[in-house]
């Protein structure tokens, strides 16, 4: 690679067409990824705004900022927006959409028009749900537990349910597209075990999306039908069983947790390799652990239900299976850590996020063991302990991975570099703000503070204030990248084709790539993460 300043290619996917039609009718997976990026970013900041109001309200034990009704709508909106409209699509629909064809040497996904359709379906689902959140609101929690949702709630449950039902199809279509693409469109020589771990992780995620999402669709449909037409599926007064709802709901919603975290794990595998300039330690173990998590993830749902009166022996089975998911997760963490060993470890921003991910995911994963342990789960379930645990996984894990990936591939996406100094500062701010927000919640949870409380006993105030203070730091941490990434689209330093440098076909085309991704179809004749060979080839390595 030469040391001359990089120049942007004359024609690339971003300037291949102008005007709104060239975006709204595009079938280019890279442009659709940008459409998704804009949409999920909007949803993220909306969900974040709800979180700010929740934390502000909890500064005082009397919850003096908003009424109980408003508070219940706020935490419901926060959960619904963040889970269905940010976390689930975040990495797959943006980075996955952008990168999977590039990583496997394809011109596009297998079904480009279905890809665009999935975005429209997502937007329609989001608009329906937002309409419900504004008109009437929703106060069921994102969990929609019956019979509260079907009989007692006076809010727009049916509309919101329809929105989520519709959105589910965008998730199914994306998963379907990825699976077909990964099976059928790999470049010559790109065998399964030469696939980047990012692709393996998305393959596992897609399987869950296809198998799990129809179940949540059916479940919200049953809720809507019971609510609107008074069928007795879940309402015991009409002969239904409210526990049945929970089985159906968690059959999807527990695997959905892996829809959120697996893609992030895929990002971390790429980043760890690139910034250690080293093969990922135990490649096949990390690849197979993704599939193991996807498979086992379907068998653990009732650990959300240990205090519902579930039979003792059934609880034991679900407890044992829940522990079994911990093993493939642990394997990943150990392998990433071992990858650093005798590497050339760079502390650039994506790697800072990877460090953060590994630390926070470790705590999130280990605290999950408390919830799998029957004797402890009884005390901590439905308390802030659970809230802390899943935010360590979802925010500490999934969002750290998302931001790390966004920075790592930003030169490829935008053709320009983000400002490194600002990026490092915000990564550190996010890490510190995150821990201050959520660590006190573990203590609150073991003390017994239940979740979804608008007011709380006074003795919990200090820990709540700490959490709210952390949330304000975290919020600033998220705003900084928003500003400098937008700024860098125009003013950032122009990036070369392979600036870090890193292995992977996506770095062998220009930054930004042309609409068809590659001038000619690449042929793969080397193993994955062959950093020794890459470094051999680059006479003068940048940075």
């Amino acid at each position, binding site marked *: 690679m030469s040391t001359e300043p990089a120049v942007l290619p004359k024609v690339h996917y971003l300037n291949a067409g102008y005007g709104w039609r060239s975006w709204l009718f595009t079938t280019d997976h890279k442009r659709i990824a940008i459409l998704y990026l804009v949409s999920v970013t909007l949803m993220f900041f909306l969900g974040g705004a709800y979180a700010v109001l929740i934390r502000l309200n909890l500064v005082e034990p009397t919850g003096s900022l908003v009424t*109980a009704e408003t508070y219940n709508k706020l935490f419901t909106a926060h959960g619904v927006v963040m889970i269905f409209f940010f976390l689930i699509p975040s990495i797959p629909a943006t980075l996955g959409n952008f990168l999977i064809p590039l990583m496997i040497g394809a011109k596009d996904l297998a079904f480009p028009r279905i890809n665009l359709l999935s975005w429209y379906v997502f937007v329609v689902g989001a608009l329906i749900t937002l309409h419900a959140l504004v008109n009437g609101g929703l*106060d069921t*929690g994102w969990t929609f*537990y019956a*019979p509260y949702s079907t*009989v*007692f*709630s006076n809010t727009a449950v049916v509309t919101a349910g329809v929105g989520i039902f519709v959105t589910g199809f965008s998730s199914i279509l994306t998963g379907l597209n990825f699976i077909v693409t990964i099976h059928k469109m790999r470049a010559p020589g790109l065998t399964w075990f030469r696939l980047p771990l990012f692709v393996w992780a998305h393959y596992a995620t897609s399987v869950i999306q296809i198998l799990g999402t129809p179940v949540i669709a059916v479940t919200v449909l049953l809720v809507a039908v019971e609510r609107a037409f008074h069928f007795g599926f879940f309402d*015991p*007064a009409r*002969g239904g069983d*409210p*526990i049945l709802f929970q089985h159906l709901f968690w059959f999807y919603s527990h695997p959905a947790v892996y829809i959120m975290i697996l893609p992030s794990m895929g990002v971390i595998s790429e980043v760890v390799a690139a910034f250690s300039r080293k*093969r990922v330690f*135990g490649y096949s*173990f990390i690849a197979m652990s993704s599939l193991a998590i996807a498979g086992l993830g379907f068998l653990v749902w009732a650990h959300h239900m*240990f*205090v*519902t009166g579930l039979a*003792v022996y059934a609880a*034991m089975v679900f*407890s*044992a299976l829940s*522990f*079994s998911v*911990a*093993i493939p997760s642990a394997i990943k963490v*150990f*392998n990433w*850590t*071992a990858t*650093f060993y*005798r*590497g*050339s*470890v760079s*502390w650039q921003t994506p790697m800072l996020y990877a*460090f953060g991910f590994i*630390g926070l995911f470790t*705590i999130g994963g*280990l*605290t999950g*063991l408390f919830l*799998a*342990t*029957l*004797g*402890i789960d*009884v*005390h901590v379930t*439905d308390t802030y302990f659970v809230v802390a645990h899943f935010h360590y996984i979802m925010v500490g894990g999934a969002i750290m991975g998302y931001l790390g990936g966004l920075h790592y591939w930003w030169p490829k996406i935008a053709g320009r570099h983000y400002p490194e100094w600002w990026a490092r500062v915000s990564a550190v701010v996010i890490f510190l703000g995150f821990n201050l927000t959520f660590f006190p919640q573990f203590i609150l949870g*073991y*003390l017994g503070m*239940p979740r979804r*409380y608008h*007011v709380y*006993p006074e*003795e919990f105030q200090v820990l709540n204030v700490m959490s709210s203070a952390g949330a304000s730091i975290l919020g600033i941490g998220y705003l900084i990248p928003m500003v400098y990434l937008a700024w860098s689209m125009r003013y950032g330093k122009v990036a070369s084709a392979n600036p870090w440098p890193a292995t992977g076909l996506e770095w062998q085309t220009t930054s930004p790539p042309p609409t068809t991704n590659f001038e000619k179809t690449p042929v793969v004749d080397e193993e994955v993460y062959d950093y020794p060979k890459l470094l051999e080839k680059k006479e*003068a*390595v940048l940075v």
Partner: protein
Amino acid sequence: MDSPAVPLFPPQASTIAAEVDALYFFLVAVTVFFSVLIAAGVVYFAIRFRRRSPHDRPAEIHGSLALELVWTFIPLGIVVVMFGWGARVFFHMNRPPDDAMSVSVVGKRWMWKLQHPTGQREINELHVPVGRPVKLTITSEDTIHSFFIPAFRIKKDAVPGRYNFAWFEATKTGTYHIFCAEYCGTEHATMIGRVVVMEPDDYQTWLGGGPPPETPVKVGERLFVELNCATCHRIDSLGRGPLLHGIFGKPVQLATGETVVADAAYMRESILNPAAKVAAGYQPVMPTYQGQVSEEMVISLIAYIQTLPAPVVPPAPGPAAPGAPATKGAP
């Protein structure tokens, strides 16, 4: 509650609480150990092997089967211990001692209604003696709630249409929180109360205050007459419904050929939805009492039925529960 201004650990006030905390500390120790191990590994490697020049040549390492096995099987061994220990504590939580004092708990938006075996009713407050096991029968009148006493480390959902059970034995006198832990709507956060653990003598004094209340069994006996249950469920086994004496906890053969145990849940279902599980040999002629009886009335009826002794000389054996009548009727 008499705790420090910023408590970091909940009061430990039941026999189960000590068991849960021991297990909790074990998991905390494992968590701290592995978090520190990983963090130390990441930080050490990141500094020791930091990039010193763009010409660094990292080691060529693919992996190590030996290490993979180590970090698969060591965590596996640890989680097996967690599983076994956790299951043992959970079993204990789900096996109330036989001599436990029985308290009924009915959740209703947004209050807890409790009743002692001696008949005293309380709302959002529960007075119990120290050192005596208390068994809670928990249900709900509307949506799902969850009865949670952090100081005792127990929690159980109050599910409409079901009876759930929990138990505790308080070890320390004092006042502790009762929370509703399952989101139940607008006033969920104020569906709270307190449990007051008293010396046994003080508890007796507390029970003695006020006029002597009607016990659940007495209420049940009165309702049994008022609701005309006795017309069909006759002591001489000649009614249209099966004899209820002595059937509590016994297996009942159903018209479908299945067998169910005549527990509280079956009794409740048979009162509110009699056609669901008709005893073999009887017609589904019993009317429903849905809407005519509250959850507390059902609990009282069941408490009364439990006390009915089995007939001394059982009549000719029939196809149904012990003491099936010659004539046919509904359960």
